[in-house]
């Protein structure tokens, strides 16, 4: 007993060291490859700063980059600005109307003891009217994250949809030759900055899944020569092995209340089925019982249903079953010979899936009410779709030449981005929930 406990603590310490090692993080570069034909021209005027040294962050630059990356806005260059007001009363709207700017953001970064206050105003230039004015406190350590939160507020005011600039992306990178592979589980800000390595392993890492509070990741690791599921706290790096049963332990997905993991196990008979695991009690419940492959479940937003892939009908298709295990699975995808890896939209009755489109694997959405399918991407080997928490955008894995890269596409198919790492392959992106306040 005492020995077992000692080992467990050592395991925690090792995981924590790995978490803090955080080096050699794969930096990401994001480019908009296709935007809306008419991105709205906006002006984000450089923020005023009255502190002693130089400003600790380029607030306007970060906001402008966020809005530009959304593809919906086109911030004008600072050099084109005829005036640089930092408060509403200094604004001459005619100077902005001449430039064709529709919306204007001005503000100041103010010292507040050790920390800061971001004071900003958003104006409708045509009407000469303030749409939003706010003073946002910002901890020094979290200044950049807080600026993303300001961009989220601006985005929501202008589009009616919550912004996701303050969210994060988890992904897996693979580098090194066949005999010296490095699999890394990385978490970065949605703009690709601030990448941190959470796990670094010579054996495959798979299927990162965010807890609903955004504080933990579940993932699959082969570090002990077979698949096992771990749950790791982001902040401390402490982790726990939650499933190391005989056979396959895979495809973790958190219930919306964070109490359960859906997972795929093969147990003794080697047959993959869907289970739920109550994390606090380790109580395991089997939901499907079929000789076919049943795997990669995801929960409906209300927690009542699990959508999953099954090839019980021949090829892989999407089915759903009640999360309490009652009733029989019912099929929900009907178009095409291959639909797999369902992810439930947080915003609509919609699934994202991997769909075989005439021999190409592409990301598609399925409208659950009308049972219609829409193909969104045009790659050959697209996979692993994950919804942004506002449901507006999907991130997925694709190829650029022989390299694995990430890409995003809006669910209306209009705006696309490509995200490449500076080295190696990137795969299995998982978009975080909204940050907790």
């Amino acid at each position, binding site marked *: 007993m005492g020995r*077992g406990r000692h*080992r467990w603590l*050592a*395991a925690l310490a*090792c*995981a924590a*060291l*790995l978490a803090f*090692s955080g*080096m*050699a993080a794969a930096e990401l570069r994001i480019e908009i490859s296709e935007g809306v034909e008419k991105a709205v021209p906006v002006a984000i005027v450089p923020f005023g700063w009255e502190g002693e040294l130089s400003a600790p962050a380029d607030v306007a630059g970060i906001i402008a980059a966020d809005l530009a990356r959304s593809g919906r806005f086109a911030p004008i260059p600072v050099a084109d600005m005829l005036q640089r007001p930092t408060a509403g009363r200094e604004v001459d709207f005619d100077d902005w109307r001449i430039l064709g700017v529709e919306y204007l953001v001005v503000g100041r970064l103010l010292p507040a003891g050790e920390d800061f206050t971001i004071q900003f105003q958003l104006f409708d230039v045509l009407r000469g009217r303030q749409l939003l004015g706010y003073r946002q406190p910002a901890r020094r350590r979290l200044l950049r994250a807080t600026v993303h939160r300001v961009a989220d507020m601006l985005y929501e005011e202008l589009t009616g949809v919550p912004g996701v600039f303050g969210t994060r992306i988890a992904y897996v990178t693979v580098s090194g030759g*066949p005999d010296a592979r490095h699999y890394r589980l990385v978490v970065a800000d949605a703009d690709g900055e601030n990448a941190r390595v959470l796990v*670094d*392993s*010579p054996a*495959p890492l*798979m*299927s990162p899944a965010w807890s609903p509070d955004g504080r933990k990741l579940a993932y699959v690791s*082969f*570090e*002990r*020569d*077979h*698949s096992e599921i771990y749950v790791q706290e982001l902040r401390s790096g402490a982790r726990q*092995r939650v*499933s*190391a*049963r*005989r*056979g*396959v332990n895979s*495809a973790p997905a958190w219930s919306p209340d964070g109490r359960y993991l859906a997972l*795929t196990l*093969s147990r*003794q008979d*080697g*047959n*993959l089925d869907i289970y739920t695991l109550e994390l606090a009690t*380790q109580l395991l419940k089997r939901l499907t019982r079929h000789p076919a*492959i049943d*795997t*990669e479940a995801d929960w409906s937003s209300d927690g009542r249903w699990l959508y999953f*892939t099954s*090839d019980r009908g021949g*090829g*892989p298709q999407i089915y759903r079953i009640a999360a309490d295990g009652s009733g029989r699975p019912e099929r929900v995808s009907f178009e095409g010979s*291959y639909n*797999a*890896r369902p992810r439930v939209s947080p915003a609509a009755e919609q699934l994202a899936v*991997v769909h*075989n489109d005439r021999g190409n*694997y592409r990301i598609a959405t399925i409208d659950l009410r009308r049972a219609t399918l829409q193909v969104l991407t045009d790659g*050959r*080997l697209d*996979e*692993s779709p994950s919804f942004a928490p506002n449901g507006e955008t999907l991130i997925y894995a694709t*190829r650029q030449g*022989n390299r694995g890269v990430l890409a995003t596409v809006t669910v209306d198919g209009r705006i696309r981005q490509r995200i490449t790492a500076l080295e190696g392959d990137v*795969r*299995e992106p998982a978009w975080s929930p909204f940050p907790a306040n």
Partner: protein
Amino acid sequence: MYSIKHLGVALLILLLAGCAGQSGGSQGDDLFGEYGGEEAAAATAGTGADEGIPAGSAFGEGGESVVAGPSASAENRLIYFDFDSSEVREQYRELLAAHARYLAANPAARLRLEGHADERGSREYNIGLGERRAQAVRNLLLLQGASAEQLSTVSYGEERPAVLGSDEEAWSLNRRVELVYQR
């Protein structure tokens, strides 16, 4: 600059090695593990040269002999599959029968069946395909005289391709089960 970076990598490797050794040691009292004694051998997986155990040889119906067991050639420890299929092709039946005879004759021998898929489609579904292929091989070996405690399976899905590349040839070489004798 570079040397600092290399030092960091070296430290990380040491750290990982320490962690790997540590977690291996805790396997025995793993609360959630169903891995019993025989599985502990999997922690020391290796396909090194044979020592002591004589290599079995078998005679095929077609007259050509195949060598099974740990000293079988790499080619005789690989089973390839068709796209989206876990059916063992006719051509491998005699090879697997020879491995089964080796296992029956060497009760202490342990064989790990590593199932793989090609890169197309969903990663988790491919874990399923790899497991199903490993199980198909396992079932044939059991039918022909190997015993259950000699066999273990693992699926790597598309995570450990034998060949890099995105064409039919690479895909066909990656849809496989590897027979890995444990020491």
